[in-house]
């Protein structure tokens, strides 16, 4: 069995693209940067596909179980014996699946951007950043060490910062990029401390060893970490929840989601890459990576994952119904779908058929990547044409952009969960798993899936129907072929991805899952989805007064949802009022006036003292003679009186 080291080339090629384009792009590759980046990614994608083929069909399975294989390992930073950051490559089903997803979607985005970003002055820089991001993300999924994942996690964060803030002259883009970085970094603080906790008790940072030590019943490591408790919660739960906090930040789970909608300030293809298919699922990936520990040793932590996911899924879906910026609708829909993946992990168990939720989660991650990046790229094509993100500037575009229209429709059907589109299959597995495990979560999921169908078709009708086509005179066409080809390819995948046998490939314990969802089970969710679509058709297919009236009738609730439930305001209050005004300002004041004031006072006192006594050194002999004899007189007096 051989997994040659060329797997390392998958992330290294984008890195090389970043270095070449970043250092020399501005000068030498102003026009060819796109081609270079795209070809590089094509190579990476091909290697990923061949790795996937090799793993799933040839060598990954030993005795019917998919193995975790450590291909390479190199000690990069040794903290203490046994505890080190190793740069390694770990191959297992989720890694292989992610490699394919990340490299493929990135390739599509590279291709799409050839047309979309054409004529940008910083075209080469854009491709350099795309390369950096892709490198970091691929490095993240290949990581074999929890600190290695943190390392790439931070790199992903900064490359996303660079891409969101790509239009750096726009203050809103700068603000959004800062917000994204700082919010996720706050979450990463939890991740970091979680690593400290887990590694302190397990004496390792290596995933394989860590998972083994923390899942073997009766192992001294597991006993120790469970015995350690803080505020009545065990060390293991703390560690896992803190790590999950990092995951929740990147995956935009409530209440750490606030950066995601703003991040839409970045170029739209970037959103398709980062905010649909790759970075935002990093949190899901992280939980999946540590899933054995969650599932086998700490169901309490897994419950938190479940409820966070379920709440986020519903919460985001409600907000998505009210947004008018098409990218923000997609952003909230992403948050909602990732909520699905999270709670699917939360309801899952580890072994065999009970691992349905895990499998469903990964399945949904897989299908969602294609249809959501398709939606973003479609939105990009629309924005490219009408030069606006607002629904009110759109409408009636179906004739003008036939390819975008059809592919967008396919993606909407897929996300709504209409058979036989891909989203249907993955969603069914998740619903089945939650039905078996937790009825409340099932109900929330069901409701959310109806809402999803509703707001997606609201979006669809507002863009492509609603108004007559002739409102868009004078705009250029649908875009170049480099923009259309990714749409077509992703549309095909959005249809067929549901037929990929993820159930027999990507499972928690490596064993295939054979159970299938009975058709009777599907009736309820599908009819809910159809109801959502019908409602959207009634309200938004042709422009009418009804949506407006309903919004007014709903009053406060609608307003709160459209204002995103004021979470941003809460954050603003905490940062501006508390961090800046209550801590930062007093700290600066204290330093200037008290600490430094004390030092200055000391200096001043010394100066005054010397001023006071410097009169003694007058340089006049008479004065000195006076002091001299005065001194002698004093001494004599002292002598007489004190000498007893």
């Amino acid at each position, binding site marked *: 069995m051989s997994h040659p080291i060329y797997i390392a080339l998958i992330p290294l090629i984008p890195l090389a693209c970043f270095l070449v384009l970043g250092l020399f792009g501005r000068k030498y590759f102003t026009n060819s940067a796109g081609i270079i980046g795209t070809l590089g990614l094509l190579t990476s994608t091909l290697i990923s596909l061949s790795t996937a083929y090799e793993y799933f069909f040839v060598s990954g399975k030993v005795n019917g179980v998919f193995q975790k294989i450590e291909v390479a390992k190199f000690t990069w930073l040794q903290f*203490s014996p046994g505890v080190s950051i190793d740069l390694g490559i770990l191959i297992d089903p989720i890694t292989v699946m992610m490699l394919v997803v990340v490299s493929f979607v990135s390739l599509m985005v590279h291709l799409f951007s050839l047309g979309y970003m054409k004529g940008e002055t910083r075209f080469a820089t854009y491709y350099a950043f795309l390369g950096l991001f892709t490198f970091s993300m691929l490095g993240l999924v290949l990581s074999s060490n929890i600190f290695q994942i943190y390392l790439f996690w931070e790199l992903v964060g900064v490359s996303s910062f660079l891409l969101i803030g790509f239009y*750096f002259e726009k203050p809103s883009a*700068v*603000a959004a990029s800062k917000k994204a970085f700082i919010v996720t*970094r706050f979450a990463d*603080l939890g991740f970091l*401390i979680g690593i400290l906790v887990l590694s302190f008790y397990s004496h390792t940072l290596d995933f394989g060893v860590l998972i083994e030590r923390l899942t073997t019943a009766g192992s001294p490591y597991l006993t120790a970490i469970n015995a350690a408790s803080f505020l009545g919660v065990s060390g293991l739960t703390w560690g896992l929840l803190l790590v999950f906090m990092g995951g929740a930040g990147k995956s935009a789970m409530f209440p750490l989601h606030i950066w995601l909608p703003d991040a839409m300030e970045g170029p739209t293809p970037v959103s398709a890459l980062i905010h649909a298919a790759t970075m935002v699922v990093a949190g899901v990936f992280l939980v999946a990576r540590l899933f054995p520990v969650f599932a086998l040793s700490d169901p309490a932590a897994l419950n938190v994952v479940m409820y966070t996911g379920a709440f986020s899924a519903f919460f985001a879906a409600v907000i998505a119904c009210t947004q008018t910026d098409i990218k923000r609708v997609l952003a909230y829909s992403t948050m909602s779908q990732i909520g699905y993946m999270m709670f699917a992990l939360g309801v899952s168990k580890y072994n065999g058929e009970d691992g349905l939720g895990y499998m469903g989660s990964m399945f949904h991650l897989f299908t969602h990547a294609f249809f959501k990046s398709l939606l973003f790229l479609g939105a990009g094509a629309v924005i490219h044409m009408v030069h606006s993100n607002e629904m009110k500037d759109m409408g009636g575009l179906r004739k003008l952009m036939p390819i975008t229209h059809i592919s967008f429709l396919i993606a909407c059907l897929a996300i709504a969960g209409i058979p036989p589109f891909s989203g249907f299959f993955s969603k069914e597995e998740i619903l089945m798993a939650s039905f078996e495990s937790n009825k409340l979560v099932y109900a929330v999921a069901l409701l959310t899936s109806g809402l999803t169908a509703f707001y997606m078709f609201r979006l669809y009708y507002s863009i492509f129907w609603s108004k007559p086509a002739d409102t868009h005179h004078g705009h250029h066409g649908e875009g170049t072929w480099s923009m259309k080809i990714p749409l077509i390819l992703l549309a095909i995948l959005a249809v067929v991805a549901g037929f990929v046998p993820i159930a027999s490939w990507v499972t928690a314990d490596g064993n295939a899952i054979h159970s299938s969802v009975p058709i009777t089970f599907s009736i309820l969710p599908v009819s809910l989805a159809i109801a959502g679509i019908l409602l959207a058709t009634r309200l938004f297919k042709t422009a009418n007064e009804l949506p407006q009236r309903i919004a007014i009738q709903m009053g406060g609730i609608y307003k709160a949802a459209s204002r995103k439930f004021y979470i941003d305001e809460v954050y603003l209050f905490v940062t501006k009022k508390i961090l800046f005004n209550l801590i930062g300002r007093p700290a600066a004041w204290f330093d200037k006036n008290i600490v430094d004031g004390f030092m200055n006072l000391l200096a001043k006192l010394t100066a005054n003292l010397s001023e006071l006594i410097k009169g003694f050194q007058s340089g006049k002999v008479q004065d000195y003679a006076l002091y001299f004899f005065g001194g002698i007189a004093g001494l004599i007096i002292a002598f007489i009186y004190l000498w007893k």
Partner: protein
Amino acid sequence: MNLTLFLLFPLFTALAILFAQNLKQIRSIALAGSLLQLGLAVKLLLAFNAERAAGNPAQMLFEYVQDWYAPLHLQYHIGVDGISIAMILLTSFIVVAGILVSWSMETLSKEFFFLLILLSLGAYGFFISLDIFTMFFFLEVAVIPKFLLIGIWGSGKKEYSAMKLALMLMGGSALIMVGIFGIYFSSHTTSGAHTFDILLLSKMDIPLATQKIFFPFAFIGFGIFTAIFPFHTWVPDGHASAPTAASMFLAGISMKLGGYGCLRVATFLMPGAAHEYSWLIILLATIAIIYGAFATMMQTDLKYINAYSSVSHCGFVLLGIGMLTQTSITGAVMQMVSHGLMTALFFAAIGMIYSRTHTRMVAQLGGLLKIMPFISTVFVIAGLSSLGLPGFSGFVSEMTIFMGSWQNPENMSRLATILACASIVVTAVYILRAAGKTIMGPITNSHFEHLTDASWNEKFAAVVLISGILIVGMAPFLLIDLIQPGTQIIINKLGVAIH
């Protein structure tokens, strides 16, 4: 390898500068001299690694002893281990970069470069000394030029800042002096005489009661050099008034003298007291980290931002030392190297911006990325390094400190570690605020549009520092392998002190 060369090279460079005719000659000599120093430092590293590879187990290599004043047993005793080599390399990088950014120093150029070289001489002497008295001597050699550099070539309220810096550092020196005399008079060699020799001292046990008296003097004294709270207020004013190269030297070299002294003199020679006062060091360090970070957030002048962030980052050094685990102390040394490089880079970038726009106020700057892409990129790299991005040096050193600090199982240490970790979020806030406003955003001032990007010497300086940052950040194992044997010895001594 003759370590005395580290004194002779700067000495001859400084002398040659005195005989130079004009700015062109002066700076060429200074640059050549600094490059020679860099070459020498690299050669030292290679020679050291070769010796170690050949199996030389001595605590210090390339030792040389010469009696200086026999009646008091003052010796010129020099030698290096991995920790000192790391510091020497850091110094040589910064000297090269500092000279390059001062390329067009027109006023009193002879004196300016002379003082820069003299300062480097003091630093090298300090790092190679194995005799505390000699060490102290070189420490003072490094203080005086700073006073003059700020007082003469500075800007703003330079007299005040120069005086403040000199007085506070002199105050620190006075404390150090008390501390080292305390050590000296409680030492007893086999012949019954007192000694300043670090190697001899490290083999003795100074009574705990004596240690407890003199440790605070030595530690706080050296601590003042590395901005220990609440004696850090010379840092912001000093940096803000100093010319660019002096800021770089101050942050990159001078503040490291303090950290090195805290480790090599206070902690190593008085390990019992280090355990006793560990809680206090951790407390002061944590205050410096958090409070420095929050104070940074409110600053409006780029130099003040970097100066306060230095207070916060040097807090990490003290935290690492105070935690007393091998990993944390290794991290502290790494943080010294890392902070030296990245702060110097930051000051260099600020200096480049200031010399063009004539302002350092964040509010007046904006959109520089469009006008001067190279300088802006340098600024961003320095910022990202400062906020601990992987790939740059800040990440590896901070993570090593965090990992090491967590190994200290006291509840208070845990809390301190969590707070220190939290400071990296605040760091992200102030770095991104500064970068977001000055580098990104719209161009605020139309006069800026015609400004030029970096010149060759500025580019050269930036590349030197960035390559240092990248080497540490990408290949931390090189640095770890270098310093770990050194920290091991300190840890062994600390371990003995417990029992």
